[in-house]
């Protein structure tokens, strides 16, 4: 295994760890907003690390550029989505713990 494979795989594993943490947060945290907090870390940081790792593995400027674009757009989409959902949740008045079942 050459150095770039090692570096790429390490970044990839770190990214996966962030996703794992995000999932744990989604499952274990008590209310919408703290879950949101956990999840956005996975979205931003996890995807960044995975993209960086894959770019190092691929060793191709075009691929690296595409991965950068994917991460940037993903960042934008995730922030807007998270913002909209948080607003929605606040309007729905579910800021404290859980409310009974109903879409």
């Amino acid at each position, binding site marked *: 295994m050459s150095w770039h494979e090692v570096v790429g795989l390490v970044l990839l594993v770190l990214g996966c760890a962030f996703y794992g943490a995000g999932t744990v947060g989604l499952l274990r945290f008590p209310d919408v907003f703290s879950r949101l907090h956990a999840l956005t870390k996975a979205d931003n940081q996890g995807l960044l690390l995975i993209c960086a790792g894959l770019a190092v593995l691929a060793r191709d400027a075009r691929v690296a550029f595409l991965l950068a674009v994917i991460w940037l757009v993903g960042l*934008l989409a995730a922030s*807007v989505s998270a*913002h*909209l959902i948080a607003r929605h949740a606040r309007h729905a008045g579910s800021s404290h713990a859980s409310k009974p*079942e109903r*879409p």
Partner: protein
Amino acid sequence: MSVGVLVDVMLALALVGLSLRVVTGRALFRDMVLFILFGLVISLSWSRLGAPDLALAEAAIGAGLTGALMLMAYRRLVEGGAEDSPGRRRSFLALPVGVLSGALVAVIGFAALGVERVPGAAGTLVLEELPGTGLGNAVTGVLLVFRGLDTMLEMTVLLVALLGAWAVLGEARPGRLHQVDRDTPLVAALLTSVSPLTLLIAVHLLLAGTDSPGGAFQAGAVLTGCGVLLVLTGTLRPAVAAGLVTKLLVIAGLTAFVLIGAGALAFGRPTMALPGTWAVYLIETAMMLSIAVTMTLLFARSRGLYPERR
């Protein structure tokens, strides 16, 4: 290779589990959300099976558009006072029918897998003949060159679906869409950055589609995503009547197909024989526009759209 099979098994389990929850769930909204995830997993399966053309279409349509369509229809039902009834019919037939039809599919599948592959099968023939068409993507080749008639008829189906939807549309009610609040600047930022990007990707898919994964359907689906985004944010508003441009765009794909396909007859060539790569690009562009406009109208549940004036 065993890791590959492990991935396959996980995807398969996710598919079965999700479909089971979608079908037997007790809250309609939740089941629609699960259905969206089902589309995501199907898209992952296409990626895994080595069919990026399908993964592209599924990502835009299966995971995005169908889900958005259902959520909007659900919204209208709730607005109209419909109850989210978990209603379920008791039927002694249901379980046996489900089990038997599943078993039947499995039996047919295993029988089909057991049949020995002959060298002249359609797929290999296509790959053999492909260099003669000037196209590099076998799927696009099948869609436009080898089975052009099917694709033309598909455009007809799309048109009929739209006409049908127009026919059942209420008279004076151009779908009242509930727009997303626009007082948050993020939505505007999203629109200004994402909609040009979707256009770019659509054009890229269209042009790349002759040689690599992509093509009119995928490009049309992406463009539909852009249209739906604009409708959802209220940038495009439903109109009561269809304008001339809208009507022309809706029939553009079918028209291009008929003109070029039947025009071949006038020059003494077989029907649907395309005269060259330029014809492929022309038809694909027309199809992309038709698909995008038709689907966006189906989504907005209106006869036309007009841009919001501010």
